[in-house]
């Protein structure tokens, strides 16, 4: 019997039991749909996150106080006040970090702000005038504070769109004084809404000179982050190394494992986020695979029933000259065809769902969510479903092929 005829026979076998064939593959369809959906959305999420991280400028390098904890006992290393003014001096020294383009110390804190009788809880972000360049920020009205404001610890602030909304309602905030942690700050600029999906959300932030934050608002002398940019992307790695050396020197550290700071490049961050989203995606794939496995067991069950039900047909075929192999191929192919068809339907359904959801997310959240067709997931889904057909169809098919023609014909 040629492969084409085995194929024809198997297809006819499935067509004669159309509704049962459909119910049989439902488990596979659901499993593959879930996998396609998860892989596609995972890839979309990853693209979105990486896009935003990279939007920050790939030459950006951040220094965070404290080292990454190496174990549970090392947790205190996370919280540290190790980054101080003298580090800025060390890092600004061209001899230490020759390819440094920009450097900006930052401080974060939370506090309540008020204007008249309105109050609003805000994030206080102490920075320099470079924040506009580094984060690519533009004011919708007014402007950013200047370097002179930083040097003179001016009481000025640039405020986010939510802050405007809550404190000023319909008034024009430019030139008005708001009270933050008991100190009056003059609003010099207003930021436009940044959109829901942004990784850094400035909407409920008040940006002030870091010196003002240090001395009057937050009362902390150390920095939450030092954000730097190298002259070019190619110099990121070498600059990151230079920063480490400069800081170790400044902190008197000789053993790199005792570092009290962490240097993070955008690439590190992108890699890390990428790893997290992939891990999450594969975890979900593993969960969806359970549906596939259950679907496979369903296939085996139905195929066993079919083999028993078609005992007479098997006997007839054998009496008419079918070999064991012919019967084995027929039933195996029926099951592989079933699961492969289920796989294809699942791939189509999963793709359509993922496409619909990506449109929904783009429209609903206002983020730039790209639909991703997961070639890998599709290939894997198709392969796995066909493989399930082989594995779970194998036992019923071998049972079928072993039937003796007379036992089979006698069966009522």
């Amino acid at each position, binding site marked *: *019997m040629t492969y084409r*005829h085995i194929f024809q*026979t198997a297809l*006819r076998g499935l067509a*004669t039991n159309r509704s049962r064939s459909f119910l049989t593959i439902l488990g596979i369809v659901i499993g593959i749909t879930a996998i396609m959906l998860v892989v596609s959305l995972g890839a979309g999420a990853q693209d979105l996150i990486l896009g935003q991280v990279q939007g920050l400028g790939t030459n950006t390098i951040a220094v965070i106080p404290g080292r990454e904890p190496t174990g549970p006992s090392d947790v205190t290393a996370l919280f540290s006040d190790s980054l101080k003014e003298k580090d800025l001096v060390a890092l600004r020294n061209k001899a230490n970090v020759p390819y440094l383009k920009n450097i900006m110390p930052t401080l974060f804190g939370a506090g309540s702000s008020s204007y008249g009788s309105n109050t609003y809880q805000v994030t206080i972000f102490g920075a320099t005038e470079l924040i506009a360049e580094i984060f690519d920020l533009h004011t919708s009205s007014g402007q950013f504070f200047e370097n002179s404001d930083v040097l003179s610890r001016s009481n000025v602030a640039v405020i986010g769109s939510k802050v405007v909304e809550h404190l000023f309602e319909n008034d024009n905030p430019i030139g008005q004084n708001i009270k933050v942690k008991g100190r009056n700050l003059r609003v010099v600029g207003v930021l436009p809404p940044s959109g829901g999906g942004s990784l850094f959300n400035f909407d409920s932030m008040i940006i002030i000179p870091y010196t003002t934050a240090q001395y009057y608002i937050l009362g902390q002398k150390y920095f939450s982050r030092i954000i730097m940019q190298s002259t070019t992307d190619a110099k990121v790695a070498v600059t990151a190394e230079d920063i480490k050396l400069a800081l170790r020197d400044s902190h008197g550290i000789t053993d790199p494992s005792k570092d009290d700071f962490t240097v993070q490049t955008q690439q590190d961050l992108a890699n890390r986020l990428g790893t997290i989203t992939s891990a999450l995606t594969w975890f979900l794939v593993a969960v969806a695979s359970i549906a596939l496995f259950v679907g496979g067991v369903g296939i085996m069950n139905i195929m066993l029933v079919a083999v028993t039900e078609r005992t*007479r*047909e098997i*006997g*007839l*075929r*054998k*009496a*008419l*000259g*079918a*070999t*064991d*192999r*012919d019967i084995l191929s027929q039933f195996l192919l029926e099951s592989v065809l079933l699961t492969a068809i289920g796989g294809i339907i699942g791939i189509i359904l999963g793709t359509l769902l993922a496409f619909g959801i990506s449109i929904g997310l783009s429209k609903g959240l206002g983020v730039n969510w790209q639909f991703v067709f997961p070639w890998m997931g599709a290939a894997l889904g198709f392969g796995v479903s066909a493989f399930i057909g082989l594995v779970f169809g194998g036992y019923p098919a071998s049972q079928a092929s072993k039937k*003796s*023609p*007379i036992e089979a*014909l006698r069966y009522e």
Partner: protein
Amino acid sequence: MTNIIEVKNLKKSYHDGKTDTVALAGVTFDVRKGEFMAIMGPSGSGKSTLLHLLGLLDEPTSGHYRFNGKDISAYSRDELADIRNREIGFVFQAFNLLPRTPVVENVKLPLYYSGLPEAEWHARAEKAVNDVGLGHRMYHEPAELSGGEKQRVAIARALVTDPDIIFADEPTGNLDSKSGKNVMSIIQHLNEEHGKTIVLITHETSTAEHSERIIRLIDGRIESDEKVKHRLSAEDEFVK
């Protein structure tokens, strides 16, 4: 005339748990090429078992069987399947047609396993269907056919590989007497006009008397092996 079937002391017993059931206690006979033979006997006499052994569907416990000059004990399962396909045609009491499959496709079924060129299949199947007078039913499904027509499809299927011998297991058992006679006249025609050897099982004397020779089995042994003196022909029946 050469013998198509030579059976010597053929035995078959079944193991069923602890007990051994003897189905065939040793039978010896020959069948000439072109002969029309009937095997009769009450149920449990071993006639079905004998037919299964003769049709290479089952293996004997002991004894010798030469089919078409071949000692079948020397053949593998696959080789036996091939002999069944090319040299033997089967007609069963329960027709055993594939449901929801057109007549012509049902008749083609043995060709799938035959190794004959596919280009010939359709013509062969059509010819076989026409030979049993069902040309007008070519693309009907079995459910749309009467019992007699179904059995004629089964005969067409048995003929499609042009075998030397046809084994028929109670071919009229599920039919009314008119359809039964019609089926028997076709079988007789195959024997007389096409020279096919026919071995059929029946418990109806009227069916058996279409044959030239009747072997009667009781308790797995041959009780009698006689020529039919007043052979019926289907045409005779219609005349009466």
